């Protein structure tokens, strides 16, 4: 039993596959013994485990109404013209054609979204893990203090507006004041209106606020790694902490790593609120205009729901695609 548990922990992927095998095995036993078909066995199991359905029921209802249904509705609406007042009118691929061929601002938005996603996503993910890993070995009291320092910015909602104070556009801002005192600039820079600074600053702020749930679950996950595995590793020739990380720690917390990746990706592509509050909407020359802004613009200002749905579907495929890529990449960890 303890062996099994260890193996399970070593390779979380197995968890997804074993149950299927188990049922097959059971079916095999059942059919050889009593001669019932697989379907009948499933039916029997369903009857026996009815409590499971009762327990998962409320969630499934909520989930269908607020997640599955909306995705389907958006998907269908993306093929229509719909202004919320009249009935949707079927328009084939008109929206998509318009989006990719005629809408220049969409291309800007797409490009910016990709820039933000490619920088903030991996950076925040790696940072979350590395910091969590570093923190893991501190004494419990210091660990909770440091955890709090790192987690604080993401927990405290609008605290990132402090960056507005730091990079304030007049001479009373911290950055301008310091730069002027050092003689690097002679007149204040309006950071959040200046096209050269908007994107890098937004990325810094995004990273500052990104050590969130993923970071916390990494910490919890690291605490949960079986300590005896480390001892076994040391006996078997793991020589330093990096080998230990690669061969023991990472494989043992694969499922949490995937979870963190998913959060990082959805966060990175959904990026936009920070920009609104720091640089105004729209930002100067649309330099920080993301897909989310583009969608919100068509939804709330122009009531072109069909077109907005179309953008959301593009966003959906972007997120989904990168998630699948990451899932494959994580499958190679520790091999």
């Amino acid at each position: 039993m303890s062996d099994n548990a260890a193996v399970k922990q070593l390779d979380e992927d197995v968890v997804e596959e074993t149950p299927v095998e188990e049922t097959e095995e059971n079916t095999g036993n059942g059919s050889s013994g009593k001669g019932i078909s697989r379907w009948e066995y499933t039916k029997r199991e369903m009857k026996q485990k009815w409590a499971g359905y009762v327990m998962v029921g409320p969630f499934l209802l909520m989930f269908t109404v607020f997640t599955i249904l909306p995705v389907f509705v958006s998907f269908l609406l993306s093929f229509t013209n719909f202004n919320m007042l009249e009935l949707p009118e079927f328009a084939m691929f008109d929206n998509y054609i318009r989006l990719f061929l005629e809408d220049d601002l969409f291309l800007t938005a797409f490009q910016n979204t990709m820039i933000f996603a490619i920088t903030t996503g991996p950076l925040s993910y790696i940072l979350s893990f590395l910091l969590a890993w570093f923190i893991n070995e501190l004494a419990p009291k210091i660990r909770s203090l440091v955890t709090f320092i790192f987690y604080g910015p993401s927990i405290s909602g609008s605290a990132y507006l402090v960056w507005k104070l730091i990079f304030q556009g007049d001479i009373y801002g911290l950055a301008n004041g310091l730069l002027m005192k050092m003689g690097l600039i002679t007149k204040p820079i309006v950071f959040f209106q200046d096209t050269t600074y908007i994107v890098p600053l937004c990325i810094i702020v995004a990273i500052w606020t990104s050590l969130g749930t993923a970071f916390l679950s990494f910490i919890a996950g690291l605490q949960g790694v079986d300590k005896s595995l480390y001892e076994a590793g040391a006996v078997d020739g793991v020589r330093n902490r990096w080998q230990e990380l690669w061969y023991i720690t990472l494989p043992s917390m694969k499922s949490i790593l995937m979870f963190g990746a998913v959060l990082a990706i959805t966060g990175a592509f959904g990026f936009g609120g920070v920009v609104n509050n720091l640089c105004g909407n729209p930002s100067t020359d649309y330099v920080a205009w993301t897909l989310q802004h583009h969608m919100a613009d068509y939804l709330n200002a122009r009531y072109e729901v069909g077109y907005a749905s179309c953008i959301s579907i593009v966003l959906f495929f972007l997120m989904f695609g990168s998630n699948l890529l990451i899932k494959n990449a994580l499958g190679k960890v520790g091999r």
Partner: protein
Amino acid sequence: MKKLRTRKHSVVLNRSVGGDTVITVVLCIFGIFMFSPTYYLIITAFKPIGEMFLTPPNFYVIRPTMQNFIDLFASMTSTWVPLSRYIFNTIYISLGATVGCLIIGSMAAYAISKVRFPGYNVVFQLIVYSLMISSTVTGIAHFLVFVALKWLNTYTISIVPMWASTLGLYLMKNFIDSNVPDSMIEAARIEGCSEFRIYLTIVMPLVKPAWLTLMITVFQNVWNVGASSYVYSENLKTFDNAINSIISASGTQGAGSAAAVIMMSVPIIVFIITQSQIVETMGSSGMKD
């Protein structure tokens, strides 16, 4: 034979002094990067008006004052809807969302993790894939759903959608998987314990850290994001809404920082309280086979 390093008299495997130093330095650098803006915000909240307009601004306060907070509370009393109503709304919505999310999420997590009814894997895969979609994608159709359910401008709209938090469920399921041994559940089943009782009396106490984590995330979300954007009447809006409108109305650095400090202090206090319990309960999941 490898030399064994010790920390506080216990042997530490595979750790070099060099590595420890590098890690400490990196942690310090990031600690400063993460903490200094927060620190600057707090400092600014306590600055008197005279120190606000220095070039460059000081990174400390010479004469700390509560004036900014007093100004803030003065402008709070002049809001259209009494402030207590906003606070009540926030508490009501957070409680509703957290409790619902906990019950629905943990029950489903237990069922998926341990009851393993036929089809549980399909449900779980759906949930995993849905995590990959942000609320931006579902936002458009949410509005249509709300219209269909006639939920616009009610409390329900801010509470019920939170119950479908796949994030909480996913976390919970993972923790049950790794912290509750199957043999324990089987033993209880053989003794004739019903699934509901196993869930309530065995599994829930064992996964305390998971539901604390879930609680923090949900509460944090409600506190920071507040009521749904499809709530129009001021009576149903939350504290963050009031604070934000005060910040934008006052326009001064001081009152704005004071408001931001108040906004961030609550989730941080909640986190500090719950964090100690998470750390404490993590180690004691009990019964190892």
